[in-house]
């Protein structure tokens, strides 16, 4: 029982990091059908900014992660207006090529300016300790990830399911053509969503640095996981991405704990089987279902 709960906590905290980073990717890919492989780069940049703020300027951890999110959001907005916009009508191959190119630019830039070695962890002392949770001592940092991830999921849910903007967003994801023809400014909506998604990614990169260590190759190393979340959850589906991220976190953790020699493959087998069963993901929006 103790083991079961431990796996559940480990998996949930890991899944929450994946969720925070990937949710923006899910929504933007669903909304504009842009294959954005540079999403991990925004998470990485957010993490780097937070690390520099904490280590060089002594900014407190929480404030640094918020500032990192804002910076990643601004950067995402600039990139959307200048680089992504001309891509929307270009088809998938140019999108893949250009966004993977952006990844390499980010990797080279961070290697050049900050260096190729992994960055120090910025998890503060008050989080970097064990707390008693009844049945065992457990790392406070992981509990923090679960709480923050849950809070963010709730906020994003409020925005998407309970606000006018969210209603429009869902409409645009389900049927972009119809949304345009009833007078919605879909491209402005996309810019806003893109900024929000990048900000969340930057925040995830910063708070999740204790689980996914920051180094210049971050943008590509973890990209597979972010894309699995999108594919499994269903493009454009907020709820799908939450379910998928948590499932991936828990299944991956449980697999590695119980059968460590196959642990690395179990996840891919399951994803494979699941996509055969539901090629559009667990909870796809109506436009692709």
């Amino acid at each position: 029982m103790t083991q079961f709960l431990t796996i559940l906590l480990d998996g949930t905290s890991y899944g929450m990091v994946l969720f925070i980073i990937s949710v923006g990717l899910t929504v933007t890919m669903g909304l504009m059908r842009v294959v954005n492989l540079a999403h991990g780069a925004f998470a990485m940049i957010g993490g780097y900014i937070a690390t520099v703020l904490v280590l060089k300027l002594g900014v407190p951890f929480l404030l640094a992660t918020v500032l990192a999110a804002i910076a990643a959001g601004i950067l995402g907005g600039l990139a959307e207006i200048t680089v992504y916009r001309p891509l929307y009508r270009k088809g998938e191959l140019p999108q893949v090529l250009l966004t993977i190119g952006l990844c390499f630019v980010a990797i080279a830039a961070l290697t050049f300016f900050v260096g190729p070695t992994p960055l120090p962890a910025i998890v503060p002392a008050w989080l970097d300790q064990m707390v008693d949770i009844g049945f065992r001592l457990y790392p406070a940092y992981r509990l923090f990830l679960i709480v923050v991830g849950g809070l963010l999921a709730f906020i994003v849910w409020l925005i998407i399911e309970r606000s006018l903007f969210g209603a429009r967003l869902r409409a645009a994801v389900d049927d972009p053509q119809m949304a345009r023809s009833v007078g919605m400014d879909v491209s402005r909506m996309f810019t806003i969503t893109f900024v929000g998604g990048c900000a969340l990614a930057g925040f995830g990169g910063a708070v999740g640095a204790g689980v996914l260590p920051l180094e210049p190759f971050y943008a590509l190393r973890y990209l597979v996981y972010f894309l699995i979340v999108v594919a499994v959850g269903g493009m454009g589906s907020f709820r799908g991405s939450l379910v998928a991220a948590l499932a991936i976190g828990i299944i991956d953790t449980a697999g590695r704990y119980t059968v460590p020699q196959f642990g690395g493959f179990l996840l891919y087998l399951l994803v494979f089987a699941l996509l055969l069963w539901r090629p559009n993901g667990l909870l796809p929006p109506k436009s692709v279902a």
Partner: protein
Amino acid sequence: MKRTLIASAVAALVSLSSAAYADVVKFGIIAPFSGPFAVWGTQFKDAVEAFQKLNGKTVNGHEVQIVWRDEGAGDASKSRQFAEELILREKVNVLGGFALTPDALAVAEVISESKTPTIILNAATSVVTRKSPYFIRVSMTVAQYISPLGAWATKNGVKSAYVMVSDYAPGHDAEGEFISGFEKTGGKIVGKDRIPLNVTDFAPYMERALQSKADGLFIFAPAGAPSVAMVREFERRGLKKAGMKLMGSGEMQEIFLPSFGDSIIGAISSTHYTESNQRPENIAFRRVLNEVNKDAVPDMASIAAWDAMGLVYSTVKSLGPKFTGDQAIDFMKAQTINSPRGPVKFDPKERDIIQNVYVREVKKVDGKLINVDISTTENVRDPWKDNNPNAK
């Protein structure tokens, strides 16, 4: 007899005449400067520049020119392509580099055909030097620098151990070497995991190790993000608090210590180079290295590049700027080097390095995390070579 006399007379004449002219000796180095292994290229380059700053760019008037090639993200086919280009077009006299084993294996055929002396600066799989008679290694093998650790552990209160390695060839070498040394001296292995290379979250593995209640945990992971994540999870999950001794090797190099924070204090590692050792050669090495790049911290890669430069310089000093591959390799493998890491020599048959291996502990000295030697094993050969005398 007569023929060899004439040959050596001609050789002597050639070397005499060439000594009179200033020549260029080219040393081609293939290493990753971009991609996930970029740290190796950077370390090589800083050390080479430091060496030339201290010793000058010429030997007896002959310029030693370094030709760099970036093989990118550990791409072995590129390594071979660059080797051909460097040998045929650049006409390098000596070749070197190779961060990963496949990079070195890929050039074995090329250098054997062209008889190019080739200095391995990292690639640590034991078998590599047997793949071509023109290879010589100044780095290490995994089995070599792990070999004293098992016996050290049993002698220092670690009676049972959990073993956790990345699932790739060097990881298997490290696992085998540690377990054999540990069990031979009476230690008991209570569990072992081989972790796929793509794993990023080590929580479940550390949880297993914690439940095993072993006295010590031996880890081996590729330097960089994977090993950093592994050690952080060890600390965060309270394995240290539970009294478990962390033992590793390259993970605890000084260059990575700032990534961990103070909780790394007390971790044990076994390698062939202690970065803060007080040998005069090392102090000089660190000084010029920091003149070249003030943030540079030396590691296994930089020390290998430094000693490779020493080998090239002494070869040019003794043989002149023109030498055949056989002459160069025969000369190099007979050298002993007073390296910043300690005394270094080569096994003439295997052309592989023989050096001291140090067991170190992370300590905080003057506010800085460094490794401090606690035990030294002298003149360690590669144990794999002795256990597999005929393997190719």
